[in-house]
């Protein structure tokens, strides 16, 4: 093979880049690795011997995980379950309600609709600190069906709060997408005598699928990791989510068991990484789409 003058340096350049990035990647995952490593160390060694292997006298086996489970008089699986319930219910509720609203807003396009749309855009730029003190009180006062039913401060009803505070971005993204969808199919359905509700669920929703995934991913990432909103809104006599639990342990009195805290942090990262590895493509696409719109 005749050597091409420009190609060989190009190839070495690429190989160097690959090598360089491989090293960078290893550095990049080190923090997570460190958490895993320290979760097997006895309490005092987490601070004094952060970078050493857990071995001999510093090795704790799974005892950190065992103590972590009931640490602070609150079983960890309970906060994990509430985190899961809140994330799933809230994301589902947001997706359904905002996609419906966005379709209506985009298609009807009345003054009322425009007002709602701009309110949604406005809500996107309002920081949480602006509403947090009053939101906690509101969630403690308002009940699911107005004056009746459970309050909005339980994991089963907090999705309403998430829908209210997080509607902006979702409506914005859905409305943007709906506007770019041609009317032809919906018109055909209407001519065939298909009512709006059926049209929406059978025709519009499937078309919206890519945006549904993007918005869903963004909402899941937000809600799963959210600390302040559930901390202020949830009835703290009964419920914790994982971030709240971890913050509570670190701030507690008596002695902070760092080994157990690391074990819980490790446990809370695992589902995130599994979820990421499974839905990686969608997540990256969703983020790109969300960022470009919002």
């Amino acid at each position, binding site marked *: 093979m005749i050597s091409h003058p420009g190609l060989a340096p190009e190839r070495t350049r*690429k190989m160097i*880049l*690959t090598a360089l*990035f*491989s090293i960078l*990647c290893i550095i*990049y995952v080190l*923090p*997570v690795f*460190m958490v895993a490593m320290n979760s097997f160390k006895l309490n005092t060694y987490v601070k*004094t011997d*952060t*970078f050493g292997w857990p071995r001999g006298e510093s090795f704790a086996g799974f005892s950190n995980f065992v103590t972590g489970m009931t640490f602070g008089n609150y079983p960890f699986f309970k906060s994990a379950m509430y985190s899961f319930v809140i994330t799933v219910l809230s994301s589902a509720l947001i997706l359904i*309600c*905002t996609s*419906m*609203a966005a*379709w*209506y807003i985009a*298609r*009807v*396009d009345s003054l009322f609709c425009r007002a*709602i749309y701009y309110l*949604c855009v406005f809500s996107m*730029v*309002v*920081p949480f*600190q602006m*509403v947090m*003190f*009053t*939101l906690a*009180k*509101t969630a403690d006062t*308002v009940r699911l069906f107005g004056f009746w039913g459970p309050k909005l401060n339980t994991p089963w009803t907090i999705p309403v*709060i998430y829908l*209210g*505070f997080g509607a*902006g971005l979702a409506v914005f993204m859905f409305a943007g997408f709906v506007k770019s969808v041609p009317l032809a199919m*919906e*018109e055909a359905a*209407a001519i065939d005598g298909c009512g*709006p*509700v059926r049209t929406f669920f059978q025709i519009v929703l499937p078309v919206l699928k890519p945006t549904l995934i993007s918005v869903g991913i963004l909402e899941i*990432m937000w809600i799963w*990791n*959210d*600390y302040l909103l559930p901390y202020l809104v949830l009835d703290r006599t009964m419920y914790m989510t994982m*971030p709240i639990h*971890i913050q509570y342990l*670190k701030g507690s009195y008596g002695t902070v068991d760092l080994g157990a805290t690391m074990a819980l942090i490790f446990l*809370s*990262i695992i589902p995130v990484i599994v979820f990421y590895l499974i839905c*990686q493509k969608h*997540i*990256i696409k969703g*983020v*790109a789409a969300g*960022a*470009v719109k919002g």
Partner: protein
Amino acid sequence: MKHRDSAASLSSTLIRRPIRHWGWLFVGPMLLAFCVGFLYPFFRGIYLSFCRFRTTSDAVFIGLGNYSRALTDPGFVHAFWYTALFAVVSLVIINLLAFAVAYFLTQGIKGSNLFRTVFFMPNLIGGIVLGYIWSMIFDGILSKYNTSILMKTEYGFWGLIILVCWQQVGYMMIIYIAGLQAVPTDMIEAANIDGASRWQTLIRITIPNVMPSITICTFLSLSNGFKLFDQNLALTAGQPYLFAADGSQIRTTEMLALNIYNTFYSQNSVSRGVAQAKAVIFFVLVASLGLIQLFATRRKEVQQ
């Protein structure tokens, strides 16, 4: 234009009218939740910023006093400058790194997909957890030098910068990759044929073509920097403190959002209204950043 009018009128008869009967179903749930979860707390918050109150239900109107207190609080002023500095520094570093990584990962090197996956990963970890992971690492390193991240403002500042870089570089990288992939290849090829160096191609062709991504990432990292809370709370929580001449505390690594939170909860009842006034000021600040961004991206869209 004629064509569009007729399309609109067609859609109005076939689609608009029937949907309108169902408006309560389509918009109702979202609108009700929006009122409970956003509109009411928002306006109530504005009202309370003019009040003195101990709990939000026993408010007494006092006028602008809270605002003048907020603006003369040295802790708040410090938090503002600290936050602004942090936002700008993190903006520059995150975007430089993210762009560099995205640039190299779009050159067709082996393992690009894997690298992209790894770089994005920290983005999925929540702020509280991130803070504790890095506080463990920083203290692990600094304790070798017999100090701690809580001891020096500089440590806290750069520690937080490293943390947000780790978290956000991957996110911005994704946006830059999308932008870079949209740069027309024929333009780059043409430049290569003309004998332009790699550097020249980057400056003259690539960067102008990814300007929209740069705008987005700039505003995104700026507003992320301003709104940072969880990471700040978990990493240093404002330590170390300085004392002003009159003895008032300045929590040197406390950012705006945390300052508002601390003002509301950890002091006496007078400060609740002050905290709400601070929140309104904070809102005006963040909202104007956001609106400038919307305006900037809108104008770009029109131009294209």
